[in-house]
């Protein structure tokens, strides 16, 4: 079963978009996590937080001036939703680290069965910097990892992370194009599976120990 990168991303973003409740405060990482915003059901009103200093982030603002005064954490101009608030980065991380963010969605290089996350550096490669990721992962009430299941066939969901961590034991949920995993006290629970893949496909492409329930749910999308 071959899915294009775009198809993988859409499956992942669509699934994560179903995780939120009315009024949730959500911070999305850059890249794939940002796409989650496109699939939030219209009857659910969530509040997007941007780590530079804003609540109530709207859409990309295509009419913005060259050097806009309202941008997201990627530096791109955005619109404000009704109820939006501007503040400084100190307040932004009071919100983030203080547990006032209901969920964050971030990408990953590796996640392990203990909930450890590695998403900021590969030894020997260029390291751009952790930005706000370490604070987000520690502070958000729920940490959702959005990533393709493997790195060109190499498992990313492992027993123990082998590259430097972003945070210890903070991941709550992993969503890939193949399945949804939830971290429980007993370990990683396989919650949902994309029917395009067999259980065997999942197990072969995963290095972590998984808890397989009697009845597997179909990946929601």
């Amino acid at each position, binding site marked *: 079963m071959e899915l294009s990168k775009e198809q993988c991303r859409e499956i992942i973003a669509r699934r994560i978009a179903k995780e939120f409740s009315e009024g949730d405060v959500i911070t999305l990482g850059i890249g794939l996590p940002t796409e989650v915003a496109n699939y939030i059901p219209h009857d659910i009103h969530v509040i997007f937080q941007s780590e530079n200093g804003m609540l109530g982030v709207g859409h990309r603002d295509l009419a913005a001036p060259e050097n806009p005064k309202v941008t997201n954490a990627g530096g791109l101009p955005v619109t404000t939703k009704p109820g939006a608030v501007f503040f400084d980065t100190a307040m932004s991380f009071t919100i983030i680290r203080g547990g006032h963010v209901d969920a964050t969605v971030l990408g990953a290089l590796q996640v392990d069965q203990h909930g450890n996350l590695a998403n900021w550096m590969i030894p020997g490669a260029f390291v751009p*910097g952790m930005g706000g990721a370490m604070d987000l992962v520690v502070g958000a009430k729920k940490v959702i990892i959005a990533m393709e299941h493997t790195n060109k066939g190499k498992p990313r969901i492992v027993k123990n992370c082998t590259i430097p961590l972003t945070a210890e034991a903070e991941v709550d949920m992993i969503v890939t194009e193949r399945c949804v995993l939830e971290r429980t006290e007993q370990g990683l629970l396989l919650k949902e599976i994309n029917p395009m893949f067999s259980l065997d496909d999942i197990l072969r492409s995963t290095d972590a120990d998984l808890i397989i329930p009697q009845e597997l749910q179909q990946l929601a999308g």
Partner: protein
Amino acid sequence: MKKLISVSEAGKLITPNASVMIGGFLRCGSPYRVIEEIIKNKTGGLTLIANDTSFEEYDRGKLIANKLVKKAIVTHIGTNPETGRQLNAGEIEVELVPMGTLVERIRCGGAGLGGFLTPTGKGTLVEEGKQVIESNGRKYLLEKPLRADFAIIYATKADKFGNAFLDGTTRNFNTVMATAADTVILEPEEISDTPLDPAQITIPGIFVDYIVMQEK
């Protein structure tokens, strides 16, 4: 009343090898006029404290491109390939700090505190060389305050008392940096002849030493 100075005078204040905090988050809320003067004066050996090294061709990113920065204390260098190139070549030192920790270290420096305990970075490379302190059953890193010789601060609008209003997401690091440097230079887009409304001031003027005059 604060000292109103020309951008050229402001540029001359910055001394070689000084530590300089510069506000801004990528291009948003980033002062740039004083930076052009620093480049003109070739004032080098600087320690840059900022959220990021911006882009090669913009604001503080140009300080890197002009090789005037000896060390950068930032959260991210990914948008300025020249920072990465100089890092690889051993021409610049880069200290990467988690964003919430960086902004809090600067606030701490400005607020006369000796440090703070944060859970961020626990169990990661950020922990290296730091004291781990247990408080209420949870482990935290002790992070230290950060101050600088100079801070260059953006404002959307300022009055002659140095009081500043920063619109939209331009506040970012500007607010805390204004409290944490020995000499604070405000670079407003607009200077108001009348005082700003006391309830709508983002940065109190008492933190500001110099206001850079508007361009003619």
